[in-house]
């Protein structure tokens, strides 16, 4: 985060001179988007154009189907009163599957009327049976509030007695009792289901007895660790529903991903029907890739993407076009909001026409911004991914993506915020200098022709599974022979018995601990352990929380901790207390921890030759230790000092994908041992980037290491390059990497080849200052050897 900003600040200083070199892409006073597009097209024809690609989706007509006969006449009348006389084809298809008692997953873009896909069957069931119940799960509380309004809109028109409520951490306790007693439809989130509903299911007996439908919206958000947790929560949910004699049907909605049906089936462990034939209309839409020009070829520095994004957004705003700017982190959001506010002046009411929007804002403030967007009271909003999910803000004229959102799916979803049903809309992606951004903007075909990413979950991660088995035992005794997911539970329960939390009696395992297991398990990450940051500048005040792994690298003694743009010096790091004491400071540098990571292979699951190397995947033990830190000056990135640290060692078992380069092969390369090592590290950086691209995961979800536990001269001569799941137990990222090893190798080679830098830069193998002068050359050679199997020597 800090680095991106550093670049941006630098860009500000240079802006004046650069503006003279590169003409503004949009200089006309024309207010129509067509004119803007014309300018983009013209700019694209120039040599070295910053416009990487322009794609245009033509306008699409709506495709309708009559409202099915089976739908209750009161409901169709209510829909008609809301202006819904016919259904889009995808809505009708979803209805048919549900009517045939099939679980269904609906995949359509933003603003295509997908909520009706689940509201229709639920309301129809309620029209026939007023005691029926449905549970809606949304990844955030805000979405639940938003969807409650939508639901009540139709249900009020129906004039029925249907009672729908949100139930989450904000629900007051006196309201909770009434909701438990009366609600037909409960709109909640997985965390509340996990810690609030299931452990108290007896109070919800009526609800579970009549539970007919479970709706999971924004299904694509449940991947990785969160998804693996949700799958287990759903195992618990179906188990409790079965106790009350119900077997609810699932209706899921997802943004576009490669494997929605597979994801739904992995999460719910039931067969699903897929509906992806979008019948909703849309206007003409343009998508423009913009790569800020290089200003320093040596260091591979480009013009600041923040400033370029600001310029793009400014152009749309000047033309009175409602514009949404997405930034990829909190800090960039705040900086862009500030810039655009300064540029936009004030409305007649004295309010700025531009506002920021992110998770940290108060709910009331966020509802207000959403409303102002819908009512077109404000012109521009700068948001984090908080606005990516389906909150209703209407459709806008333009979207500016400040930096690649990290995945194809998420890019399409953000771009989907632009798109009136009639007329033209534009999305501009402004690439940052991060490797992933550069890869995408230089390979538009990967984005436009490639499939969006797969979403993976691993519900059988032992650590996750066992923690939910504990919750399950708390909720209902686990019967002998009962399965939880694909497993017989006997062996696991015997393990839990050793730790004293369950006890066997009769023919079941009973919970025998005073603790409340759901409290100790957070769905959003594997460990719930975290560090508290205490500001002791004046008195003592908690200023933040940092997750366990991040704390070791960002809160060690003498570190500079950044929070809301303010700098804090870490005075004391109390490992056992899980606390760091910090003081406000003003200084010109930040710190970067130096971490040593060692990998020990425990068990190989599979291996195969890939060119000159051997690819493997299996189980590994990661040992990491923070050994020191560097002080890095703001703006210039100069290293202005360092320090040694002695931090406790951390151990983690996980799964990894790794490459082994045989000694004979490396020996044949004409480089020094150090250069070979640098090249390997450089290749690691590239593999992490393309691996993240392939897996639709954050690059931080993948760790890299070239240090195996057998240190010493042999390790240098016979090295292995590990790409491991950065979560205890692994979340299933290594196997797909192994399966797609050929394309991993070729993508890595293409990325290095396509990068215009001379000897490495942050966009490919890393800057020469970090990885050495020859890293790019060696890495390319190594990457090349991965696919060229004919020239390869015999494997070691």
């Amino acid at each position, binding site marked *: 985060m800090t680095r991106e900003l550093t670049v941006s600040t630098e860009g500000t200083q240079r802006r004046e001179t650069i503006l003279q070199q590169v003409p503004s892409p949009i200089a006309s006073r024309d207010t129509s988007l067509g004119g803007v597009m014309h300018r983009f097209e013209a700019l694209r024809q120039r040599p070295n154009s910053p416009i990487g690609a322009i794609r245009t989706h033509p306008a699409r007509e709506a495709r309708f189907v009559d409202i099915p006969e089976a739908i209750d006449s009161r409901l169709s009348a209510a829909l008609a009163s809301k202006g819904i006389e016919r259904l889009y084809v995808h809505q009708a298809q979803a209805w048919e599957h549900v009517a045939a008692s099939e679980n269904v997953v609906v995949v359509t873009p933003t603003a295509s009327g997908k909520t009706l896909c689940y509201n229709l069957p639920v309301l129809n069931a309620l029209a026939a049976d007023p005691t029926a119940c449905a549970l809606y799960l949304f990844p955030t509380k805000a979405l639940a509030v938003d969807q409650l309004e939508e639901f009540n809109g139709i249900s009020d028109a129906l004039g029925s007695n249907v009672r729908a409520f949100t139930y989450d951490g904000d629900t007051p306790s006196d309201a909770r009792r009434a909701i438990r007693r009366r609600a037909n439809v409960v709109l909640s989130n997985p965390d509340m289901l996990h810690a609030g509903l299931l*452990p*108290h299911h*007896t*109070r919800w007996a009526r609800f579970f007895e009549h539970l007919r439908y479970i709706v999971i919206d924004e299904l694509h958000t449940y991947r990785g660790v969160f998804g693996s947790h949700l799958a287990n929560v759903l195992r618990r949910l179906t188990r409790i529903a079965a106790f009350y004699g119900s077997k609810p049907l699932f209706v899921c909605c997802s943004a576009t991903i490669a494997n929605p049906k*597979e994801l739904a*089936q*992995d999460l719910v462990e039931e067969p699903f029907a897929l509906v992806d034939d979008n019948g909703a209309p849309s206007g003409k839409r343009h998508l423009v890739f913009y790569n800020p020009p290089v200003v320093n070829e040596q260091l591979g520095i480009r013009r600041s993407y923040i400033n370029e994004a600001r310029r793009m957004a400014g152009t749309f705003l000047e033309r009175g076009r409602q514009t949404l700017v997405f930034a990829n982190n909190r800090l960039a959001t705040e900086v862009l909001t500030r810039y655009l506010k300064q540029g936009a002046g004030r409305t007649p009411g004295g309010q700025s026409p531009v506002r920021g929007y992110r998770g940290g804002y108060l709910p009331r403030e966020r509802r207000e911004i959403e409303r102002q967007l819908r009512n077109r009271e404000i012109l521009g909003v700068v948001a984090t991914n908080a606005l990516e999910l389906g909150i209703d803000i209407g459709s806008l004229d333009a979207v500016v993506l400040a930096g690649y959102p990290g995945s194809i799916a998420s890019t399409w979803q953000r771009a989907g915020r632009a798109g009136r049903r009639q007329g033209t809309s534009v999305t501009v992606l402004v690439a940052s200098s991060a490797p992933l951004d550069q890869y995408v903007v230089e390979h538009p075909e990967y984005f436009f022709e490639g499939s969006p990413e797969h979403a*993976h979950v*691993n519900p*059988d*991660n*032992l*650590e996750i599974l*066992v923690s939910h088995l504990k919750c399950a*035992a*708390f*909720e*209902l005794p686990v019967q002998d022979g009962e399965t939880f997911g*694909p*497993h017989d539970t006997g*062996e*696991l329960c*015997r*393990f839990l018995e*050793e*730790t*004293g939390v369950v*006890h*066997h*009696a*009769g*023919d*079941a395992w*009973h*919970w*025998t*601990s*005073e*603790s*409340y*297991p759901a409290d100790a398990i957070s769905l959003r990450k*594997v*460990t719930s*352990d975290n560090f508290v940051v205490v500001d002791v500048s004046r008195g003592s005040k908690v200023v933040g929380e940092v997750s*366990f*792994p991040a704390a070791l690298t960002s809160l060690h003694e003498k570190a500079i901790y950044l929070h809301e743009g303010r700098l804090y010096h870490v005075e004391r790091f109390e*490992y056992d207390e899980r606390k760091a004491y910090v003081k406000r400071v003003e200084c010109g540098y930040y710190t970067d921890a130096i971490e040593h990571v060692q990998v020990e292979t425990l068990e190989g699951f599979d291996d195969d030759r890939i060119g000159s190397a051997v690819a493997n995947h299996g*189980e590994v033990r990661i*040992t990491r230790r923070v050994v020191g830190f560097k002080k890095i000056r703001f703006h210039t990135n100069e290293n202005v000092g360092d320090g040694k640290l002695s931090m*406790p*060692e*951390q*151990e*983690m*078992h996980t799964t990894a994908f790794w490459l082994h380069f045989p000694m004979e092969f490396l020996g044949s390369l004409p480089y020094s041992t150090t250069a070979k090592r640098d090249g390997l590290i450089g290749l690691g950086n590239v593999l992490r980037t393309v691996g993240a691209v392939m897996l639709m995961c954050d690059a931080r979800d993948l760790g890299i290491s070239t240090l195996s536990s057998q240190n010493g001269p042999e390790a240098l001569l016979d090295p292995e390059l590990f790409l491991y799941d950065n979560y*205890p*137990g692994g979340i*299933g990222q290594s*196997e*797909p990497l192994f399966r797609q090893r050929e394309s991993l190798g070729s993508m890595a080679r293409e990325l290095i080849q396509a990068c215009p830098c001379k000897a490495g830069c942050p966009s490919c193998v890393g800057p020469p200052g970090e990885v050495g002068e020859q890293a790019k050359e060696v890495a390319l050679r190594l990457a090349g050897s991965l696919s060229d199997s004919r020239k390869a020597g015999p494997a070691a």
Partner: protein
Amino acid sequence: MIRTTRLDIATLRRQVNSSVGRSVGSAARLAIGVPAPQRRTRRRNRKRLGIDGEERRNALGRFLVQEHRYANGRIHGKVPIQRLQALGASWVESISAGEAAAVDPKRWAFLDTETTGLAGGTGTCAFLVGVGAIEDDGFLVRLFFMRDYDEEPAMLHALAGCLGNFDVLVTYNGKSFDAPLLETRYRLQRQRNPLACMQHVDLLHAARRVWGERLPNCRLGTLESEILGVERQGDIPGSLIPQRYFDFLRSGRAAPLKPVFHHNVLDIVSLACLGSVLMPVYAAPERAPLRHGEDLLGLARWLARLGDSDRALHLYRRAIHAGLPSSQLFPSLWESARLERRTGNAAAQVQLLRDLSRVSNIYRAAAFEELAKHYEHREHDFVRALDMTRRAQRYAPSAGLKHREDRLLRRLGVPRAAAAASS
């Protein structure tokens, strides 16, 4: 879909040991990493001897019952068990302020549970339920105990049968703890909840009204020593009880459970004795045999909330007479002044307000203002009203008082300018 199909407990143990969050070699690793203890022989053979009581059997299985009899001749702390015989049917009605109907004391069940935790939720279980009842020759406590989880259905079934003989449930904090917990247990065992058709009197609320002001807390243990004068010998703290039970489940050794049974019995006897102490208090609150001002005050406030102003005022007077700390005295004077006004006794109200206006206290300004209202509106003595208004302003000036002062000056016929000069 990628599934990790290996389900190797050794791996799992490694995972638990080495998950992020634990440094290598920590104590936790050593504790969990030790080899699994040998599986014990089946629990069926385990010795559960050494527990007093009688094994019972019903359609759903076996469980254990203990009976503890407190003859009328015994004394619990300062309270003779004999006093329980004096409880009358109307007690239920008076203590619940009419919410519950009068029932013969022989049909009251005094109930308390010992549980596997305080967290609530479906994973908390009542392994021991005690029911006390008043009988002709004394007080009888029956304990229903499940020796393992598989005895829960039979135990709950028997408990339901027992409670069928009673109409009123008397508990201490049972409305928020024991009753919902038992409801959950019955629901989980798919049995009818016997509590659903009983009246429920929770003595916590009744006790808190009377002693909440004076005692540091209103836990049953506190009342037991402070009010009943019971000193428990060798009692087990409630927080240790769940672990004792878990230990028993695993080891089969019953001796450490003995204090748990004893604890439960004492709780129920104390509950009943507390009822007998509270009975005369609620039967005729104005004559409540209470000596402490704070206790009387608590009762007075309760009656005031119920709208029983006459009896409330009587108790306020008794409380003030019995002596109250200043933190309670001034509020009592102020509250009773308001009640006096509401009941139309202006003279008494004025007397109380005068008392309040004489010494420094947080109601002083308000008392002057109330006196000003009294003189202005009821006695039409504008001079005194003005005097009171100005005194009130000395302590707490406000726009309202200024407004009153201006109006009084007008009523007294003082021109604006003169008024300004005079003040």
